[in-house]
Each structure stands twice: as C-alpha cells, then as structure tokens.
C-alpha cells in the first residue's frame, strides 16, 4: 500500500494538482484528514464529504464545457437483494461500498475490480438499506440491519470485532453510515416506526465499546418531557437515521430527530412531542452531549414527515450579509434554513405540493400532500458558494391517510396507529435550486419521477443528481439546463461522490432495485418471478464516470 501511495503521489506531482492531494496520501486518514476533508479532492472519507455535510468540491477537472464528454469508466455489480443507498468512501485508490443487506466491498477505485468482499446475512426487520461504511484506523466500520456494529480490516476485509450496538434488536436496526470523530464512531439507530425511542450513540472506534447515548426523547424530569401526554413518550420514536453535521471548531453536532410515533395517531400522544421532527444542536465537547438549541419543524407530526435530510452547514449570503447557516429538509415538503448559532429560522420554502397538512389521519381517511415518502428525502442536497444557491431534489406525491384510532405495540412490527398512506395522483419530482439570498427558487425542474438522489455540486458550476427513474444528470448550476445525463436503467436513491486516482477525476453513483418506498410500476425493471428466474435483469451497480 505504501509503495502504491508513493507512485500515486508522483503522478499527482506530474499532474500539478493541489498540494492537498499530496498531503492526503498517508496510510490512513488522520484526525486532521477528517477536519480538512473538504479540501482533499482525491479522497472522500466522510459520508457527505466533510463534517459540514456539504457535498461540494472546489478542485475539479469537470467543467460545464467538458461535462458533456463524461463517459462510463467502469461499472461493478454488487449484491442486488435490495436498493443501493450507499455513499462510497474512497481512500488512496480504494473505494468501500455496501449493499442493502450489509455486504461490504473494497473496490479498486480506478478499475472497479473487487479487492475483497464480505458477505453478510442479517435478519431484516422491515426495510433493507445501508448507506455505507466509515473508514478509520485501518478499519472499515459497518452498522447492520440486525443491530450490530462491525469492524473489518480495511486491507484484508477480515472481521476485527463485531458488537451488538442496538439496545433492542427486536425493533431497532441500522441503516446510517457511521461517522468517525476523534476515535469515536457516531451512529443513530433506526427504530422510529417500530416502537422504539431514537438515540445517537458514540462508540470507541478501537473496541466498539459504547461511550455515550443521547436519547431524542426527554425522560421524566428532563426539559421537554411534558410535551408528551402520559406514557406516550416511552414509544415515541424520533429516530436518528440519516446523517449528522459537525462544526469542529465549536464541537457542535447538528442532528435531526425523526417523526413521533405511533406515526399516524396523535390523539394518544398529545403535545408537541419533543425532540421529534426537530433539528438539535448538541455540544459534544464534554463527556456526554448537551442540548445547545433545538428547532422543531413540525410539532406533533401525524404524517411521518420527519426531517430526513442530513443537516448541511454552510456560510451563505442572506440580504447581503454572510451568515453561518444550517439547512434542513423534511418529508413534509419543506426546505428550512436556520441560523447555525441559534437555531433561529431564517426561512422556510415549500419544495413539494402541500395540502391537508393540518388534518390528523382518521378512520374515514384524508388526502394530504406530500405522501409519506414525499418532500425532501434522506440524501438531502448541497450548497454552492459560487451561486449562493442550495440544490435539493424533492418528491411530489400525495397520499390518503387513515387511522383506526388505536395503536397496538407488537414486538418487531410497525407501530403506526394506522397504515402507511396509499399514494394518490401523480408521482413526480423536482430538482430545486434555492437562492439563499432571497429564500426563493433560483430555478426548479419538474421531473417525471421522484427525486431523492441528493446533490453533488462542483465549483465549476455543475450539480449532479440521480432520479428514481435511473437518470444520472449534470445540471448547469446557474440555469438548470441539463449539461449531461446517463441512463443507468436502475433506480437511483444514493448520492453522488467524486474522487481522483492518478490525477484523473471520477464521479461515482450507486444504482439498483427500487426500495420499498420508491417502487414505481413505471420503472419497467421487471421483478424476479416465483420460479426464481428474472424477467428482466435486476442488478445493483456502482458506476464511475470520468472525462476521456
């Protein structure tokens, strides 16, 4: 590996690329590497590129004048048991990706060749998905669908340790990508529709030992506890499952807690239900996290409209003044911009059709928009300083909600107080560019399919995103015109990333079968038959694109 690193460094010098690329070529990322990850164009070592959560790249060879020539460099098929939602981690020419069912792969980032593959067969509680690994200390870390946290040797793929990290494996699983921070792994648990209470945990990256938990629902005697009627807080949900952002200078962690539960029955949990549907800023400088501020987006949500978008920290210009901001998006179709220091609302913008939002689901049923999988989803979006705009895809659907007025907790089953809504009407999406200066649209494109593929913005004025119809697209950041697109013919519900090997820049995207939430009959991907044969190929693929 060292020999290879030296060769790569030599190539980098010849290519006259930035010094930051050189600096990155140590054996494994150091604590400094993570803090300055946004300046390292060769590697991608945090889920959303940097601790700010902003998928934005300053050093890029891809420009609006050459993006049209992007070609597929390689494509590697991986385990296709479910949808791919992975955000690849790339370090020193090796890419680490995961499949929906927790298989882990180390790929040659230049060729796509499989270096090692660890298969896994977790018990699946409800949805199969995984958003990727963390890389630290020569290990890759994966949090699994059966509630484990596993360390694999990054070079060999061999298991280093494997711990049960979920408190209750009957109703809790992991889809989130662990985030390395100061020899800790930060990880949220998915249990927000299955009768649990959300929590964010810190584990010792060396041993897997739990360091702390921060619970999203205040217990008796804690501030905010009285926002839950009676004992309803005990199964109140508010899971942390998408992503986090960290301001390393102030040791502030930004996290969104998900919807309260039972999802569709508010009558048994009267109150605003803190910290469900809230962004919370946590001081993580001490032994345990402390709440600095919170901002609840939808108090007492009864439609599963959780703020799925991972927080994005950025400095934007509002009314002519530069401000430290944090962006959020929820499944209720709202894009939010808050003051990063105080949590005060700067503005809110509807990015999906909104209708009937104040009627709680009832026995007869009511239509409300967006649908439960509508609005802004778990890959979020990105901010580009050059345009002072935020690029965020959204889903435009409506749903018919019903609730029988009762909710029963059954171990390992949904705890909803109703059923997930029936989708009614069209199923479309938007690619939105929001002008941070005004809080209004710079441009937006109405597209035929739901858009949940996040966004990667390049300082050269390009925004990449993928749609559930399989189109991987490069937009002109200023105008929204399509500069390039590639049909993967598979559902895209993963975010794009960028890296370089040997001085050549690659843009990578994962695509595969549609997830439970995004199965669309129009996709025509076919489905496996009962006989076990496939009427159409259903594959899951990692595809890298590069300039000729």
């Amino acid at each position, binding site marked *: 590996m060292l020999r290879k690193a030296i060769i790569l460094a030599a190539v980098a010098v010849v290519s006259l690329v930035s010094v930051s690329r050189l600096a990155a070529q140590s054996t494994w990322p150091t604590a400094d590497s993570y803090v300055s990850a946004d300046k390292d164009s060769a590697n991608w070592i945090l889920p959303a590129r940097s601790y700010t959560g902003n998928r934005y790249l300053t050093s890029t060879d891809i420009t609006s004048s050459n993006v049209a020539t992007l070609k597929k460099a390689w494509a590697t098929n991986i385990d296709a048991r479910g949808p791919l939602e992975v955000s690849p981690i790339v370090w020193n020419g090796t890419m680490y990706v995961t499949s929906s069912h927790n298989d882990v792969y180390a790929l040659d980032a230049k060729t796509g060749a499989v270096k090692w593959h660890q298969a896994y067969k977790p018990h*699946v509680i409800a949805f199969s998905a995984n958003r990727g690994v963390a890389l630290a200390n020569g290990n890759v870390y994966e949090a699994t669908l059966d509630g484990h946290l596993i360390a694999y040797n990054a070079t060999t793929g061999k298991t280093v340790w494997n711990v049960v990290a979920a408190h209750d494996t009957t109703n809790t699983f992991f889809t989130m990508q662990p985030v390395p921070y100061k020899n800790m792994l930060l990880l949220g648990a998915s249990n927000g529709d299955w009768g649990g209470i959300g929590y964010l945990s810190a584990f010792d990256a060396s041993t897997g030992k739990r360091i702390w938990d921060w619970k999203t629902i205040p217990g008796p005697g804690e501030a905010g506890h009285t926002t839950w009627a009676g004992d309803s807080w005990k199964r109140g949900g508010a899971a942390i499952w998408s992503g986090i952002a960290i301001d390393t200078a102030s040791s502030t962690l930004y996290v969104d807690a998900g919807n309260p539960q039972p999802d569709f029955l508010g009558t048994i949990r009267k109150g605003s239900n803190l910290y469900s549907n809230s962004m919370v800023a946590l001081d993580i400088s001490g032994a345990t996290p402390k709440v600095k501020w919170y901002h609840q987006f939808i108090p007492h949500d009864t439609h599963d409209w959780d703020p799925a978008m991972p927080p994005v920290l950025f400095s934007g210009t509002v009314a002519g003044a530069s401000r430290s901001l944090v962006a959020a998006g929820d499944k209720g179709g709202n894009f939010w911009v808050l003051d990063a220091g105080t949590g005060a609302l700067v503005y809110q913008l509807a990015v999906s059709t909104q209708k009937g939002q104040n009627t709680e689901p009832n026995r007869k049923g009511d239509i409300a928009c967006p649908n439960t999988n509508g609005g802004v989803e778990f890959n979020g979006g990105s901010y580009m300083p050059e345009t002072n705009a935020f690029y965020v895809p959204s889903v435009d659907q409506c749903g018919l909600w019903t609730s029988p007025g009762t909710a029963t907790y059954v171990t390992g*089953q949904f705890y909803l107080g109703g059923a997930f809504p029936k989708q009614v009407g069209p199923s479309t999406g938007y690619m939105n560019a929001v002008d941070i200066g005004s809080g209004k649209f710079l441009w937006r494109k109405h597209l035929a399919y739901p858009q949940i593929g996040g966004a990667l913005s390049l300082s050269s004025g390009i925004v990449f995103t993928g749609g559930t119809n399989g189109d991987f697209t490069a937009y002109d950041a200023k105008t929204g015109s399509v500069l390039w697109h590639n049909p993967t013919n598979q559902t895209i519900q993963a975010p794009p990333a960028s890296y370089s090997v040997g001085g050549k820049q690659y843009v990578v995207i994962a695509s595969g079968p549609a997830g439970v939430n995004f199965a669309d009959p129009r996709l025509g991907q076919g489905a496996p038959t009962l006989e076990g044969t496939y009427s159409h190929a259903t594959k899951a693929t990692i595809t890298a694109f590069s300039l000729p």
Partner: protein
Amino acid sequence: MRTTALRLAGALVLACFAPVQAAPDDHAGAVAALADVRAAVAEIVHIEDSYAVGHGIYLRAAHRAMNALVGRRDDGYAAAFGDPGDGVGTLGHLDTMLDKEGSSLWTPAIEGAKANVLAAADNLQSAFGEREMEDYEADLTRALANLALVVGRPSVDGVLGGISGALGNTTLGVPAGTASVSGCAPPAHTPAYGIVAQRLVYVALPRRTASTTIPDELSIGRVVVQGDDVILYTRGAGAATTACGHTAQLPRADLQRRRLQQTHLQRTRDVQRFTDTPAMVVAAANPEPPYTAAQAHDGIAVFRKSCLQCHGADLQGTAGPSVAGTDFLTTAKADKWTLSDLRTTVFQNMPFSDPGSLTPKQYAAVTAFLLASSCYPAGTKPFPQADSSTLATIKLGPIPGAKPTNTKLGTCAVK
C-alpha cells in the same frame, strides 16, 4: 355455558356436598347475556355474508343486533325491527349481575364485558347514520371486534376474559342445582364443580353417562380419568390450588406424569367416550393456523403481483423483510407473534405503497400462501376473510416435524 349444556342423568345426592359460594342466578344471567351477544353477532355476520343489497336490509340487521344487546327497557331498543335476543338484552343481564352488593371474583370481567357492550352499541349507533356501504361495514367491523371482547375466551382469566373467561374460571361457571365442592381434592362423587377461593378448579363428570356434555365455556388444562369419572382441570387449576395449603392433595406429580405418558390421541379418545365435543380438549394445544390448499394456491398470483417485488421470489425479502421460512418463523417466535399479528400486518399495512387495496378474499389467499410457504399443513377450514378473535390464540414459530422443500430457507413450495 348454555343452560342446556349440562344435562346430568340420575339423581344427585346434593346433601353430600358443602355449598361453596354458588350463584346460580348469576350463572343463568351470564349464560343468557352471552346468548344475546351471539344473537347480535349472528345478525351482523349473516348480513355481511349475504349478497343482500339495499340500505334498509343492512339498517335492519344493525338495529336487530342493537336490540339483542340493549334489551327492550333501553332507549336504544327499536321494536319495529324485531329482537333476535331474549328481550332482556346483554346489558340487562349484566346490569342485574352488577347491581348486587359486594363484588365477586368475576365482577371485573363482567364490568369489562359491559364496557365493551357499550362500545359495540356506540359502533352500531354510528352505523345507523352511515350513507356509504364501506362506512357501515367499518362500523360493524368495530362492533364485532368489541363483541368478540364481550364474549372473551375461557382461557383468559380476569378482566380481559369477557363473559366466557368469567364462566370458565370462577364460581360463575357453576349452574343452578349442581354441586360445588372444595377444589383442593378430587371429588368423592360426580358430577361436581371444584372451587378454590371462588376459582373454578375442575369439572368432574361421570364418564359413562351418555347424556353428559362438557360445558362450553371451559378452558381445559388437564384431563384426568379416574375410575368411572373424568376430571377436567381448568388451566388455572394449578395456580388456584396453591391457596389450598395442601397442594399434595391435588395429584400434580401424577398429572404431570400422565401428561407425558398420554399422547394427544389417547386423551382425545378418552374424552370421546363420554362426550360429543372432543374439540374442547384439542384446543388446549396451540392450534394450527386455518387455511386451505386451494386458498394457498390462489395466493400465489396475489403474492406475485403485490408482494414479490419487495419480499422476493424466495420470500426471504429484498427491499423488505422475510415473510416465510426459518428466518421469519424464528423471529415470529422470538417476538411472540400470533396469527392475528400477521393478519394485521398483511391486511392493514400491505402492500406498502397501497395498503388495504386488495379484497378480503385476496388478503386471505395471500396469507394462506405465506402459511403454506412456512410449511404449516393445509386443512379444511379456510383462513377467515373477516377478523377473528381466535387468530390471537395461534402462536407462530418454527414447526416441529416440518419437512421444508427448501431446507436451507425452511420454506415449502406451494402448488
């Protein structure tokens, strides 16, 4: 326990037995209350199962059910529609039982039953005003669910057991004119009801009396054949007799040994000698999920169209979880899922993107397909299209002796 259920031949020498808190009038009241509930349920089920059209026919069924529940002394009674009950109504009977001074062991169960009757009456009241058929059906489904709780189950003791639970576990189960004895020891004579601290411990019957019938509302935990008598111990007998202070009097060790020695078949055979309702004893084991092979076959197409995309051709889950075989059954056992839990998830929450969109027949068929795929044996009783309280008594889990066609996944091919 119907009043006709225990027709005992031969003269009884009642003087031999010490009376223990017998409450014959309350027993009759509870039995009559139960009969009125069943009359109300029959009205609803009959109209639901028919192909009747017309608002008036459905309205009539709801009113008749209401009449059976509330009785003619209630404001809600509408004489014009007729009364399938006895005129006193479930509420009338239960009120009479509850109006007495003091309380019995069965009082909480009867109070609970009354609350559920009132809830069902409220559902029926809503049904009277519905314009849309689906709204009417929703009301009646809720009424049926509440009435299922009123009826309750003999196997459940306490407030959740409903009227059946009270009859099957307390002195309420002792009919007028029959003997109550201390349940701490087997009876000297039969027939007799063994009681300990107001709990029904056993019903002892003469084996060779052709006209003897097992009480309907009885949850049998153990059957002991003793000479010419058979003693049907209730499920709660063991716990109840701890109050005796002389537990040795109850031949528990002997009973345990017998349980091991006697096969299920042998027990059934013993009971068949004196009763025409052997199913009562069979019910003591975890029942098999009901479904037919034809239903499971029909479920193949439903699964293919509506479920396969997320649950996979091998039923082990793609975007969603496994729904049959070893992984599913192991989880079901660990999480204590009943067939009712499975039904709720399938009928109410699936397909994920369009829950409730299949017909009851399709939902029943696809549930049958899942059960068959998990290697449960097919039977003659179909998986019910309407909800049934019995489903909650059927626990899911790995099936002893199953012979999966796919041994790796533990699934059976459905044809």
